């Protein structure tokens, strides 16, 4: 569905994407993860055939976007990061008019619109103004809009950013159904739970490059341990800073991360780590053993520094 080799994108002197290789297969659900500014959206815009590539090779549905842009776009569904719904039109017209841009006959679009309103649970809101919809409803409408041409490939740029948990779960449920129906999904996100829920395979991008690739499970296996022990110490604990404490238990895990409020010990057996910490006479005020998550992988690969 998507084949990219050495794909680059620059804006003047700034290189947003610095040569990435990506292959997405039919029916797959593929994710681009990365902090802000990692190059995810630039990559998505190139894949959506709206932004010319600066270098490398890109094939979408077997075609070259520089030559067959309109044909490619006719077979894609795009759910952009910001809602670009027409606030002046009602819910139904937003879908109907969009469908017409694809050259679909009136009757066919009309039937498709009813079907989609049902699918995203907005049938009752068909006549409502877009302005009156909640954030979650607008997102659902945007997703419905991206499906109006029955796309072979659905591109979702941060589909649930800014939504409350209920709205996110409704959306995930809809996306999961699409995936089961065989639609190829490509999404960007910086929510790890979203990536774990939805992606069969993903790449982690940082500063315009791909830094890791695999399924959520293999990424965790390759870049983290099975479990993480989180240790919180009281402020005055033995009068020592976290660094000093970390040294005392450095051998207990594969890796130790020192955070301002706690220590993370990466190990395959968290309980054992805790037991040994106590054996060494240290008294953490709170302990937590949890499974390693994609978030650990993500933070390990892209760092904890804030990127704006």
């Amino acid at each position, binding site marked *: 569905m998507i084949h990219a080799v050495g794909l680059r994108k620059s*804006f003047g002197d700034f290189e947003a994407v610095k040569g990435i290789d990506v292959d997405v297969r039919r029916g797959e659900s593929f994710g681009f993860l990365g902090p802000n500014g990692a190059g995810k959206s630039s990559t998505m815009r190139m894949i*959506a*055939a*709206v*932004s*010319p590539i600066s270098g490398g090779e890109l094939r979408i549905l077997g075609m070259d*976007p*520089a*030559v*067959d*842009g*309109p*044909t490619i*776009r*006719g077979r*894609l569904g*795009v759910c*952009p990061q*910001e809602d*670009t*719904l*027409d*606030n*002046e*039109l009602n819910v139904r*017209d937003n879908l*109907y*008019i*969009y469908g*017409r*841009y*694809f*050259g679909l006959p009136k009757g066919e679009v009309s039937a498709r619109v009813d079907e989609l309103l049902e699918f995203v649970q907005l049938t009752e809101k068909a006549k409502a103004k877009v302005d009156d919809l909640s954030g979650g409803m607008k997102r659902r409408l945007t997703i419905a*809009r*991206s499906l109006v*041409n029955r796309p072979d490939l659905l591109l979702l740029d941060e589909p649930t950013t800014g939504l409350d948990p209920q709205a996110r779960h409704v959306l995930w449920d809809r996306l999961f159904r699409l995936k089961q129906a065989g639609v190829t999904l490509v999404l960007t996100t910086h929510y790890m739970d979203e990536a774990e829920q939805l992606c069969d395979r993903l790449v982690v991008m940082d500063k315009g490059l791909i830094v890791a690739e695999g399924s959520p499970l293999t990424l965790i296996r390759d870049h983290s341990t099975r479990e993480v022990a989180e240790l919180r110490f009281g402020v005055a604990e033995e009068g020592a800073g976290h660094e000093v404490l970390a040294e005392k238990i450095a051998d207990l895990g594969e890796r130790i991360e020192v955070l301002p409020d706690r220590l993370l010990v990466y190990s395959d057996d968290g309980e054992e780590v805790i037991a040994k910490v106590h054996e060494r006479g240290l008294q953490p005020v709170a302990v937590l053993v949890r499974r390693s998550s994609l978030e650990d992988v993500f933070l390990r690969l892209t760092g904890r520094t804030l990127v704006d």
Partner: protein
Amino acid sequence: MATTGDLSVLEGMRRQSDYWLTVYKRTWRGSIISSFVSPVFYVLAMGVLLGGFIEGDPDRLEGATSYLAFIVPGLVAAHAMQTAVGETTYPVMGAIKWHKSYFAQLATPLAPVHLVAGHLMFVLARLVTSCAVFMLVLVPFGVFESWWGPFLAFASQLLVGMVFATLVFGFSARLRSEEGFGVLFRLGVFPLFLFSGAFFPVDNLGSVGSFLARLTPLWHGVNLSRMFSIDEIDWWMAALNVAVLVTLLVIGWFWAVSGLTKRLVT
């Protein structure tokens, strides 16, 4: 992407027709009223009342037998300019910057050239309505000297309107901040409105002034509209006026398409 593939401009426009029809249906009542009321006010205030103080001397009014007959054909041409500018300033910037509807459309098979064509087709429809209403208002005032002249005058008004639509579209597509519109209105549209021969014969501006006035696109439209309305036609001049406007229209079209393409395809 700049490519249009096998999607023709015409087909691209057809696909947007439902969108622009919806917009038109939403606005046409208001536009009819404003394009009816403002001509009546203009004609009464400038043509009838102000014109009452002005001697209807055809030698000094480019052949018009009354100030009313002189001023109104120019006013309709200027009205066409203002309508076109109104539809290609904030609406274009809004579609790029605020409600981003152009970006939504670009994710479909449509390309910038289709968006420009669709938007301009809508402007043309607006011009047709508002100029037609204006011209109909003028009928009872007896300013038209032939039955066919007004139709050519109407066509000239559409032509000059579309010239402004394309040129201003290209300007708006390149503009980063809406503050630029203030400059356009104050230093572009307003002086053109006042000094392009709608209100007085440009000869009154002196040799340099009248030469400059004749370089403006609006003057060519005003001149055509007036010549055809009052049946004082210099066909060579008319041909020149049309040639200038058509040339500007072609330039404006490419300027608009290249402006929107540069802005949206990054």
